């Protein structure tokens, strides 16, 4: 804890931003402003905020589909993230990516990914590029416990360790791969232990404590940056809401959810800082008001954004022919030409 609490207050503010943002997403989803799938990380905010304290702007990030918090903690504007969720061209990637594929090359945020473990091999390539060029940069690769069962996890862990690549593997273990609990999916449920089989340092941290996450992530990122090869961090956390907006959440005991809610990282930090005399009622009110204002601003921004015109449907498929012809026009042309005897 910093002496004047400035840093801790910032951690608190960032967690609250993510929480309030995702709560707004629920409303916008119910209002059909956000379509498709929506996966919330409410309860897991300490992971995103803690990990990103350890990364600099030169570092790269590869994420997973539950990544709104990662994007916000990375510093991508809330306006752009929400516009992306609403499919607006003002979004991080013109609305093409949506909730599961937030992508911002400028922020070196190389995408969420709807394929569980699909981002891991890509992270290895990014890290190899840094390694080949002798750059002391970290590629942070975030994924859930479900990814550990995928073949791409094992291919990537092995490649990173074999070639001593600067990858920080971050597993947000929320104990459920959608509806399948870790115990029903893994023979070895101690994921840090499993990772250590690849001959890389692997530590577990309390994913409900932003301070513990930050400390662990800093230690790991520093080691990676110093040329120590890959590092695996398991963050033991929990999502308070269902897997997605469609998920009836029948696979978890309500009492289990309530037990984890008692460890909600936001009130925990509020209590801690208040008791340490670092957070007054007025400061807490100001933080909440500031976050609320940002969420309202982002909502208005996204709402006033532009949906991609249908004429753009065939654009950006390939780079050298960002086609302006729609599929309908091509079909019409083919028909017209076939009528010429």
């Amino acid at each position, binding site marked *: 804890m910093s002496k004047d609490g400035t840093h801790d207050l910032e951690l608190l503010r960032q967690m609250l931003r993510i929480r309030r943002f995702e709560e707004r997403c629920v409303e916008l989803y119910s209002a059909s402003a956000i379509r498709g799938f929506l996966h919330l990380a409410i309860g897991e905010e300490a992971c995103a905020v803690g990990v990103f304290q350890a990364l600099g702007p030169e570092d790269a990030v590869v994420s997973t589909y539950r990544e709104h918090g990662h994007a916000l903690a990375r510093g991508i504007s809330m306006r752009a993230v929400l516009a992306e969720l609403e499919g607006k061209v003002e979004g*991080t*990637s*013109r*609305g*093409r*990516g949506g909730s599961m*594929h937030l*992508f911002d*090359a400028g922020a070196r945020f*190389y*995408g969420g*990914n709807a*394929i569980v473990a*699909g981002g*891991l*091999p*890509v*992270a*290895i*390539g*990014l*890290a*190899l*590029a*840094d390694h*080949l060029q002798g750059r002391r940069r970290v*590629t942070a690769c975030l994924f859930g416990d479900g990814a550990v069962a995928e*073949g*791409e996890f094992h*291919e*990537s862990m*092995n*490649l990173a360790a*074999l070639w001593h690549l600067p990858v920080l593997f971050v597993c947000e273990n929320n104990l459920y791969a959608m509806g399948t609990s870790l115990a029903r999916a893994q023979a070895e449920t101690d994921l840090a232990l499993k990772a250590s089989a690849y001959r890389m340092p692997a530590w577990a941290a309390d994913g409900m404590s932003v301070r513990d996450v930050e400390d662990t992530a800093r230690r790991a990122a520093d080691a990676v940056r110093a040329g120590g090869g890959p590092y695996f961090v398991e963050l033991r956390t929990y999502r308070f809401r269902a897997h997605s907006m469609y998920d009836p959440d029948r696979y978890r005991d309500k009492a289990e959810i309530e037990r984890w809610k008692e460890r909600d990282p936001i009130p925990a930090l509020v209590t801690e800082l208040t008791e340490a005399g670092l957070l007054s009622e007025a400061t807490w009110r100001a933080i909440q008001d500031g976050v609320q204002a940002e969420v309202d601003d982002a909502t208005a921004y996204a709402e006033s954004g532009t949906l991609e015109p249908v004429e753009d449907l065939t*654009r*950006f*498929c*390939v*780079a*050298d022919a*960002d086609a302006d012809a729609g599929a309908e026009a091509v079909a019409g042309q*083919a*028909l017209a*030409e*076939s*009528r*010429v*005897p």
Partner: protein
Amino acid sequence: MSAVTMVAAINAALRDAMDGDDKVVVFGEDVGRLGGVFRVTDGLSDRFGPQRCFDTPLAESGIVGLAIGLAIRGYRPVPELQFDGFSYPALDQALNQLAKYHSRSGGLVDLPVVVRIPSFGGIGSPEHHSESPETHFAHTAGLKVVCPSTPGDAYSMLREAIECPDPVVYLEPKQRYWTREEIDLPLRTEPMDQAVVRRAGDDVTLVAYGNAVATAMAAAAEAEVQAGLAVEVIDLRSLAPIDVDAVVASVEKTGRCVVVHEAPRTLGIGAEVAALVQERAFYHLEAPVLRATGFDTPYPPARLERDWLPGVDRVLDAVQAVWEQ
């Protein structure tokens, strides 16, 4: 001029591309120290060092994912997937990731990746080593798929693919690896997205690619001898996109079209060509478009291979069928 094999042409294309741009890197299973199963990458690791031509573990998804990450960072990766069937474990990275990053990034990120895949049958190797994987890739928007049939094209199209800002799946007809052509390297042939007329004729159009081009040429020569038919042979070269204009121009002339490929018939490139021809040249057709293809079965063991592959006889049967309509 010298007689250059396709293996040597591809090797030269990789070497020249690596000479010209230090961001071109080659990697895959046994491509470094061994120089590849078919010796396509022979000598590259010695010449350019293990940082630019290196071996990977057996991890096909990892190989394609590595290429994506490297390409995002400014490299021009040319990974090899050792055999056609081995590309299937990499389909997640190829179809879900490689093909989609450009669109997913709103057009901001290019992925100049060339995935080389020794492909098709005809060398007596079993299933998983004789597959025709083209439809899987050609069916996925965001990937270009090309397939040379001559050493000259193999060189030129690989150079062009490496220069291309988009992901290109480069299918090497391994049965043709040791065929020779009198050429001077370096050379540039027609752009890789254009089909080429290999033999001109007014009576029947044969459309082929890869190994099947040689079969089509042999069948065309036989049709002339046996029936006096002038058969035009079109080498598609690019399977995604297909140069439909070239095919249509030929069919407008001949009114008859047969597509030849090794891949199983159902939903193969032949189905797409037939659909395009009837869309664009329906009133020029004198007969239905026919296909001479592999069967809808797993690839057979070596002793049945010659019966399975569409050989000259099956192509001639199809030519005769469209001619007699």
